[in-house]
């Protein structure tokens, strides 16, 4: 880690890089942002933005369970609960009783309500309000290593299963006719989203995490035509808004996560008008 720090000081001759918390935040951003850009492509393609949002909400219940169990690190309980939640949603959607947005809506509300009820039992919800907005400056060394690990796992999964996942999302029966195990790949994807959302929730915050997942890919879609450029542009937008948002928030003294989201939103509207202007779609 020491080597990385000194390399950063040499490569980035800015005053903000002197602080260790900014170094850590910067490292976290360059790990998290490409990850969001990458996974966001399929969230937007599969129209799953509501689902990833719900996962963020249910993480609150995960935190509450962690608090009740008395563990120090809520990440494990959050992740466990989010996985349960994701698979629960998917199996109920598969049963075909109700439409998927209704089911996700029900889970989402129940997840956040249960979390609030459990956390406010002793009247102390404000202690956990940090999870709503998140604080990227609080990232520690160990957490950066965890993020790097998650990035590697995600890229690996993206490498091995993307084609099958894309076919499954286009038409289930058609994918099945090519012996694609649609359920398996859909579940892998859901688990992946659950993992990413819960790992990064603490620094990004429940209220805006979904924007970071959805906006870069949604912006990229406005101006690209194929899968390769879709991924490249989405990752580029995500990383650009991540880094510029972090630096801007340092100078303006604003919340880093929200600043990043604002920049992403500006990019979205710019690409939207570029699309309209040049009639790209």
């Amino acid at each position, binding site marked *: 880690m020491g080597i990385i720090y000194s390399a950063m000081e040499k490569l980035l001759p800015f005053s903000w890089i002197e602080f260790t918390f900014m170094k850590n935040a910067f490292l976290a951003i360059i790990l998290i942002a490409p990850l969001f850009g990458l996974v966001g*492509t399929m969230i937007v393609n599969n129209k799953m933005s509501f689902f990833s949002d719900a996962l963020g909400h249910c993480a609150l219940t995960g935190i509450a369970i962690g608090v009740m169990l008395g563990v120090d690190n809520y990440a494990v309980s959050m992740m466990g609960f989010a996985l349960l939640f994701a698979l629960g949603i998917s199996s109920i959607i598969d049963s075909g009783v109700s439409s998927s947005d209704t089911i996700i809506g029900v889970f989402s509300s129940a997840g956040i309500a249960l979390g609030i009820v459990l956390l406010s039992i002793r009247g102390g919800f404000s202690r956990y309000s940090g999870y709503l907005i998140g604080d990227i400056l609080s990232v520690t060394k160990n957490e950066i290593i965890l993020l790097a690990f998650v990035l590697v796992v995600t890229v690996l999964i993206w490498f091995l299963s993307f084609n099958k996942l*894309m076919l499954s999302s286009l038409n289930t*029966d*058609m994918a099945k*006719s090519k012996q694609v195990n649609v359920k398996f790949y859909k579940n892998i994807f859901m688990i992946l989203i659950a993992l990413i959302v819960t790992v990064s929730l603490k620094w990004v915050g429940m209220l805006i995490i979904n924007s970071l997942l959805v906006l870069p890919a949604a912006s*990229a*879609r406005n101006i690209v035509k*194929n899968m*390769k450029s879709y991924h490249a542009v989405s990752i580029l937008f995500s990383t650009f808004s991540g880094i510029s948002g972090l630096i801007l928030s340092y100078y303006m003294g604003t919340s880093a996560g929200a600043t990043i989201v604002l920049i992403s939103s500006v990019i979205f509207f710019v690409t939207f008008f570029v699309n309209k202007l040049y009639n790209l779609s």
Partner: protein
Amino acid sequence: MKECHCSIKVKNLKVKHGRNIILSDVTFSANHGETLALIGRNGAGKTTLLKAILNSVDYSGTIEFFNSEGEYISSPKIGYVPQRLSFDRNTPITVIDFICANYSSIPVWLGHGKKCREKAYNTLKKVGAENHIEKPIGKLSGGELQRVLLAFALEPRPDILLLDEPVSAVDRKGISIFYSIINSMRKEFHMPVILVSHDLGHVVKYATSYALINHTVAETGKASELPKSQKVRETFGLDVGRGEAIWE
């Protein structure tokens, strides 16, 4: 001559959805080189029958596949063309992304290797869609998209081809192109085709045999004899004196 030149044998098939019995006692077979049209009213279970063959719904009974030598195939390759692909028209998936995702192990977000590009070009050429290779699938016309879907279904070469109202969103010219491709495939590879169609005119023109489905197999026969069938007339209400033109 062999006793049976069957490609697919369906026996006592039953499909339930909750308490509703959608199909029961369905028994039929289709031969190699035959185009079997499944006809029937809406909700008669035609699409469900295709889904059962695709193993995409739970069913009881047996569905068996045989190759052209008459040997049993335990896991058949199935080509399937859905009625329509419902997707976001702005989705940034090009034709080559779509085709290469089917048979390349390189993830399409990294681009396409030369080998895959060549293979995709050749497959698309078979259906006359090689000029659309770089187009996003949302920009294709109904007929073009169905031909691309057909190209997708034909690779790797399937043991049976299932078409679920493949031309419902295609214009008249596109329809005749589509069916002439299917017919040449069938003749070239002796590929059995099962076709769901609403349009009895198409069935007479392009299919070789038909099965009237009404929660079970109500009648089977040669496609050329379809206009004479009393049962078909009753099912489609053709005896009320309108709709004779449907055969043309």
